């Protein structure tokens, strides 16, 4: 049992950036060249992704022809299982993404592989692997071990590892997919609703509101505040889920990434992993929250422990 197997993820013809981060995790974790790093890519035309996967530290790229390009949990589970049984890797790394949530656990239980999820650290301990993940809403870190498991499957938190920064020259091979009769069928993709009045990815200054605003009637005063500050109004998931703001305002994993943001003012947002995925890269984050223990303060540059309504009221006087 040796070697690290990575399974790449793509959607609508595009390799998802997290795939190369997971390759980065594999390359960073291999033991002084002793672990062979294999990257598998599944799809109707998997060869189209091969060039983008030729990264430094990758020894082999395996293409697996499947019936469809769109994700299907039964197909990914069956192919991953067959690859693991054929190659006997000691570690299998998958991105901790929506697609992987659909097949990683069934893969682990069917193969009785060691298994944990959303890891942001990996280490070797003798013959075994150790994964580090968060617990209790990110208040603690948990080191996870896998006693007696020859193969361990770990899903990797997006943004936790860097992609290899140079190209490599891995060998390329093919692997025959096992016969699969999928029990679900992909019908269509729905793109995010276009919004003419809000551009989260393009905004340089975002004022974002969270659960702390309390009630829908309070949205308007923060909309006005954002406008007077010259900021784009963003929000966290609960605000969009409640329908208080259109989804186009939502920052985070299932919303938009604040890609060009330089200043992010987070009002009443505690800072879930999913929200931070969309904004933690911003250089200047200012958080206002009544809870001094809120996770958002661990990534903010400036923090104000206080009532967002009081601060907003005072702030208005300056603009």
């Amino acid at each position, binding site marked *: 049992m040796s070697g690290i197997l990575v399974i790449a993820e793509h959607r609508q013809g595009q390799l998802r950036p997290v795939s190369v981060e997971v390759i980065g995790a594999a390359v960073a974790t291999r033991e002084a060249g002793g672990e062979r790093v294999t990257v598998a890519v599944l799809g109707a035309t998997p060869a189209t992704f091969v060039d983008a996967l030729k990264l430094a530290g990758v020894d082999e790229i395996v293409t697996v022809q499947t019936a469809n390009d769109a994700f299907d949990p039964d197909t990914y589970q069956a192919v991953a299982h067959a690859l693991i049984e054929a190659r006997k890797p000691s570690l299998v790394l998958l991105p901790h993404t929506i697609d992987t949530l659909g097949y990683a656990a069934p893969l682990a239980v069917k193969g009785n592989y060691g298994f944990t999820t959303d890891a942001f650290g990996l280490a070797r301990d003798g013959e075994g692997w150790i994964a580090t993940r968060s617990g209790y809403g990110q208040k603690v870190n948990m080191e996870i071990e896998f006693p007696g498991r020859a193969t361990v499957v770990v899903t990797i938190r997006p943004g936790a590892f860097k992609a290899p920064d140079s190209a490599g020259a891995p060998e390329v091979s093919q692997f025959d997919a096992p016969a699969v009769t999928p029990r*679900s069928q992909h019908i269509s993709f729905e793109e995010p609703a276009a919004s003419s009045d809000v551009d989260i990815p393009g905004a340089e200054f975002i004022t974002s509101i969270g659960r702390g605003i309390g009630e829908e009637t309070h949205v308007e005063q923060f909309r006005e505040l954002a406008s007077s500050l010259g900021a784009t109004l963003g929000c966290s998931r609960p605000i969009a889920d409640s329908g208080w703001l259109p989804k186009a305002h939502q920052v985070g994993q299932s919303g938009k*990434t604040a890609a060009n943001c330089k200043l992010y003012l987070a009002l009443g947002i505690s800072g879930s992993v999913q929200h931070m995925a969309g904004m933690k890269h911003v250089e200047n984050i200012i958080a206002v929250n009544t809870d001094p223990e809120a996770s958002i303060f661990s990534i903010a540059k400036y923090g104000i422990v206080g009532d967002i309504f009081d601060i907003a009221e005072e*702030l208005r006087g300056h603009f």
Partner: protein
Amino acid sequence: MKILVTIKQVASLDEDFELRDDDRDVEADFHVFDLNEWDHYALEEALRLKESGNSDAIEVVVVTVGPDRADEELRKCLAKGADRAIRVWSDDLEEADPIGIARALAVLARREAPDMIFAGVQASDHAYGATGMALAGLLDWPHAAVVAGLEYTPGAGTASARRELEGGAYANVTVQCPAVLTLQLGINTPRYASLRGIKQAASRPIETIAPDALGLPADETGKQGSLSRIRRVYVPELGRAQMIEGTPAEQAARLAGIIKEFRGEA
């Protein structure tokens, strides 16, 4: 017609919490328990299906794996309108990881033979995102994860699910039924329990059952049936924002200064 909803009693931490002597968890005294946020949505979806047709025709059964104190969360579900509540437990399950929990749920699901199983996408405490789909794998049922919209007519052979993807996109899929679906926040607007419901739930029975009584072999119970083990828990060194102190007026003045500087006005 029966819908099984799996729920979890989650723990958040008191301020100034302490770790256990073996460093493998937080000292239990510092746990604050609640029903997992996602489970409100999973239960609501089941209750909506129940109410959409002939309500006598659909039984909504909530199940959990946990010690006595988890009854409190089951009662919250009964108060909202669940028909029955079942708790699986033995001390052997104490060290179960999400897969170990799923094995206990799977033997119960086989006994109950539901037409559909709903679980939350993840739990708000440890966020493994694994239990529901592990249950699907153990039952060998069709499955879909992170479902943010569902069209399903009880008894139908397929369901249409709208899976929430990254970046504001969705994938529409059809899934053969019975199926295990993990449901995402926002799929519906969960109801609150009525006072009457809460009162009635207090006296409703909760079935408790041991995993061996359900036929779960000892070598699949708890840590034996787990695929991971917590080796160590520690408090990470986190970054810390530079705190702006003072009265709200002073704090806001400083904040205004930072914003004006950013805008090139200061």
